């Protein structure tokens, strides 16, 4: 049987979680933090979560979307709809809108997206490309990449992310689905393409649903870094993808197919970036 505990502050929830000796999701104590519920409630409904205790927080700070230094802070409780609709996070609107139908976007939160297994995690893919940092309840910040490398359901609760604000047009996002207008990802691709004096400087390329977590395609980044988006360069970048991506078979597509079309979709995304 499930018990639900709701806390006024994230800190309280986090220490309750820590007290239970577990983390954000199912841990040793069988506790699970719930944000929007899109994944947790499904597990509850099907009785297949390995937790018996749900922790929630109604901390208003979790809903914040606000400027933070040169970037934006997005609270872990901000929904896809809120992120898509907020002026401060307009650069993430495309990625946030790519998630689910309207009802799901009204429910699914940033925090949940950070922990969602493939084929979910479209927004997180964009955040990885933007070199966002995950802020936990203890105030610590971790780069997305390290966060994903160690992603597990233990440790302090996530308070939100801080995202460097990209110049307009620098973030490009593409979601490949089987179903239109909405389906889950065959893959999601987010690229950060900052030009300095006509050359790319600080390229970041992230793929979602191409591994257990969103992952950077570093070889492709190197292929582009310091140059432009000429066809040959794009082709070279696309060729390298197999090194960095490790997709799995699922009911939507095989690993073979995902690997086969990843270069195509990356090349198309880069060409469309070149063409504005």
């Amino acid at each position, binding site marked *: 049987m499930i018990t639900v505990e709701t806390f006024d502050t994230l800190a309280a929830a986090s220490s309750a979680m820590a007290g239970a000796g577990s983390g954000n999701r199912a841990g040793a104590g069988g506790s699970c933090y719930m944000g929007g519920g899109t994944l947790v409630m499904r597990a509850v409904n099907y009785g297949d979560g390995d937790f018996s205790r749900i922790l929630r927080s109604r901390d208003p700070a979790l809903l914040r979307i606000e400027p933070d230094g040169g970037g934006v802070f997005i609270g872990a409780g901000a929904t896809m709809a809120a992120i898509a609709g907020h002026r401060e996070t307009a650069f993430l609107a495309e990625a946030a809108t790519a998630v689910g139908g309207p009802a799901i976007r009204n429910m699914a939160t940033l925090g949940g997206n950070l922990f969602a297994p493939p084929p979910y995690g479209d927004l997180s893919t964009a955040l990885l490309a933007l070199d966002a940092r995950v802020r936990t309840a203890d105030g610590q910040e971790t780069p997305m990449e390290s966060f994903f490398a160690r992603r597990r359901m233990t440790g302090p609760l996530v308070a939100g992310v801080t995202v460097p604000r990209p110049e307009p047009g620098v973030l490009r996002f593409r979601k490949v689905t089987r179903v239109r*207008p909405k*389906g889950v990802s065959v893959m999601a691709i987010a690229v950060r393409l900052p030009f300095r004096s006509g050359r790319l400087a600080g390229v970041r390329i992230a793929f979602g649903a191409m591994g257990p977590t969103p992952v950077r395609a570093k070889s492709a980044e190197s292929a582009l870094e310091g140059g432009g988006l000429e066809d040959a360069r794009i082709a070279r970048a696309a060729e390298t993808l197999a090194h960095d991506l490790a997709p799995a078979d699922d009911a939507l597509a095989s690993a073979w197919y995902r690997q086969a*079309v990843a270069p*195509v979709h990356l090349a198309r995304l880069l060409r469309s970036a070149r063409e504005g």
Partner: protein
Amino acid sequence: MAIHKGRGFACVNYPIGMNLGGDPSQALVHATPDGKFMVTLSSIDLGQGMKSVTRQIAAEALGVSVSDVHVDTADSDTGPHCMGSFASRGTHRVGNAVIRAATEARAQLLEAAAEEMEVDAADLVTDGSGNIHVRGAPSRAITVADTAIAAQFRQGRTLAGRGIFLVPPSDADPETGEMSPVTCFAHAALVVDLEVDDETGEVTVQSIHSAYEVGRALNPRLVEQQLIGGAWMGLSHALFETTEPVYPERDPAPLDFNSYVMPGPGDIPDHHVAVLERPAPDAPYGGKGPGEMCANPVLPAVANAIYNAVGVRCDTLPITPERILRGLRELGGARPGGWSGGNFGGTGNPNGAEPRTGSGDGAGNGHGDGHGTRPAWMATGR
């Protein structure tokens, strides 16, 4: 990258009712005291419109307005036996049972009216809007309501009918397969236009032009619902659906609608439907069930269109982007207009393409010569 247009054709017939017969359905019809009619069934409405089409059939056969008829189903204590809603049998079997029940009730209605009017029941007709009158003399009339009241309270007569329809059971011959499967068939033909992305194997279906022969469209809007929704399901079966994506292996297995995929509202092609009506002699007002056959021609038409577009024969369903991409790799790239040609068409060729004479050298060789020129039938339609 290239997007290749293709068009494909397929046509089918479809057997109406349970194979080999032996699948009865019954109906009861009775009048309320003031001449409204209840049709009692145990048939299932699972969206196909059973309640609605049997209501119209009953109204027609009774000679009253549809607003004076209500269909009640399905309760095993009150509704007489029905084999079920499957095999496109509902309209045909249940419809016929309803006609029989309604015809019996109508005969009693006319007899009751004749007694009230002191005329011969054989001379009476209904006007379909609540009146019974002497043929050719609309002013010599009595309302259905007054007739029912008289039947019940003065004549002591029921206005009710029972109906059953059964195609007698038969069997298939073990040696030759000789059999009497069904009594009538619906028909369909359609053209699918689509585009194939030769780098990803993705297919976008643009339009369907179809002709469906349904015996008689008992309610054209219900028929339209079946045909439009059925074609959607055909597309879904052609391109999307499977519980075992790498059959015969059981995994990975879709467990939700995120992974068991179907076309979304953004995947819907234009669909231009024509309905033909060749009434089946033993069907209710000629109507054949359109519910199953509408999906069937879409599947092969899609496969044929993909072949036309890129030269890949898609013989395994569903035709996923992966299957197409693997086919393209085996082929060494798309071969648009893949078809070995022939001398055909020629009239009204909107492309002005010349008919070609191909090698005609046989099976499986889908890409002989002249890929650059499209046969006339490949031209994109209106």
